[in-house]
């Protein structure tokens, strides 16, 4: 695939392989898309071995070992079936970010769910930073997010997820997110977030009066040592996991506050 990093003259080929409309309706059609990014080690440096976009998931190389997700269509919309595969080869370093938040919208068929599955493997001694902008749940959306993160021995990861319950003053649609992380074959973190049932959302046991929920999972040698015990501040807890890793977990009234809380929590990890 031959997309290398580090060269200033490099032009990133963007291929729309596997993107095909699957259903008609008002507005744009539902999309089936499978995007992928994979690194390889070449002469001791990280190169991008695969960079395959599939609208609305478009990937652009923005620096050495850095890829941005660029939305090239609205959504996800109800009915969209989106997949992103991330493979960070042993010893390589990859950062994935996005240029804007993701606004999840209802599709033309009210009952149709949008689905985004992210499968990520981080090889031995490799480092992945996954730090996209927030996912905003617009009114009426029905979204399913699945993250499967596999860490091999000595892999490091910083994985941030932020979910915003609707735009300003908007009641969110429904969302079911599931994050599964294993490290060396052992479960490290399994979490599901369900948004959209008002009786549960507003529970003082779940989100309380927060309008956003976010987490950053930090694991592996590149991100230092977990604190010996949990550290807390307003709306944020830095939680050493049972396995080797730390979860920064935050609730907030708005997205900027959420980001500030997560950022504060991330700095509580002792540096490597």
């Amino acid at each position, binding site marked *: 695939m031959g997309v290398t990093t580090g060269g200033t003259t490099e032009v990133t080929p963007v291929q729309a392989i596997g993107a095909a409309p699957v259903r008609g309706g008002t507005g744009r059609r539902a999309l089936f898309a499978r995007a992928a990014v994979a690194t390889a080690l070449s002469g001791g440096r990280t190169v991008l071995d695969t960079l395959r976009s599939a609208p609305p998931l478009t990937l652009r190389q923005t620096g050495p070992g850095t890829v941005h997700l660029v939305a090239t269509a609205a959504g996800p919309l109800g009915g969209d079936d989106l997949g992103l595969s991330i493979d960070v080869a042993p010893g390589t370093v990859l950062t994935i970010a996005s240029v804007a938040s993701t606004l999840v919208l209802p599709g033309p068929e009210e009952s149709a769910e949008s689905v985004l599955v992210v499968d990520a493997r981080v090889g031995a001694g490799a480092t992945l930073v996954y730090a996209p902008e927030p996912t905003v749940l617009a009114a009426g959306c029905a979204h399913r997010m699945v993250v499967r993160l596999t860490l091999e021995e000595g892999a490091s990861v910083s994985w941030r997820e932020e979910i915003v319950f609707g735009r300003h003053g908007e009641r969110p649609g429904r969302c079911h997110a599931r994050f599964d992380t294993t490290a060396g074959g052992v479960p490290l973190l399994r979490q599901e977030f369900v948004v959209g049932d008002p009786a*549960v959302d507003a529970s*003082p*046991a*779940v989100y309380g009066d927060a309008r956003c929920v976010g987490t950053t999972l930090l694991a592996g040698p590149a991100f230092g040592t977990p604190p010996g015990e949990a550290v807390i501040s307003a709306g944020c807890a830095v*939680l050493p996991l049972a396995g080797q890793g730390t979860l920064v977990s935050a609730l907030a009234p708005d997205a900027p506050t959420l980001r500030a809380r997560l950022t504060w929590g991330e700095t509580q990890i002792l540096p490597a």
Partner: protein
Amino acid sequence: MDAALLLLADSRLPAGGHAHSGGAEQAVRAGAITGTEDLARFLRGRLATTGLVTAALSAAACHLAVLLGSHGEDGGRPWTEPSAAAAAESETDARAAWRELDAEADARTASPAQRYAARTQGRLLLRSGRRIWPSPVLDTLAQAVPDGVHHPIALGAVAAAAGCSRHDAAMAAAYTSITGPATAAVRLLGLDPVVVHRVLAGLVPDLSGVARTATAAASGTVEAGVAARGTAAEAVLRIAWEELPAHAAPALDLLAEQHLRTEVRLFVS
């Protein structure tokens, strides 16, 4: 329903459950629970998240205990060979299976304070349960996780030893996930116990739903594992526990950690 379920879910079971408020004490202190309406919302959210996860783990543990306990009673299958070597091997496998399920509970409990509370309660329940309903399966579980197994796993295993079904085990876990905090709130806020029990009665449909969902998740997970492998001994080591529910409650995590840092506490958690 087995009558033993009543004993198991009774707050008078001497297993230390009364010492835990499940975050209710801190929620009261923080002003998040001031009366029965807040309490109802707190309990509904707790049941839909922690309640569902613990119910599924409990049902899974009950199922696993029954599978492991069927050694020697299920003639004709290869793992029931009575030789000493085979028995030792199956004991090793059984311990590994318990540790795997316990690791799944760990992965679903991000808060160290909540893990500590869950293990403390699990250790006490298993200690009492082994005396009330002695069973080799409970002995194996205690040896597999000597520092205290997560409470729902102890609950499911003890339920199996008491003759309860998976659904009973799930129901007991779901029930205790809300009755403990409800009782704590009565004591902390001086609420009318009758009104609080009316709140609990209003949650009965949710309780039934959670127990049903949890049982189905645990059964599906175990049966898929058994069907895919040749013998139960192999199967219990390869059950896809990851498919069990994992609903998080970020506010409970925060409350649990804040509670641990509060000097004057009536409850352990």
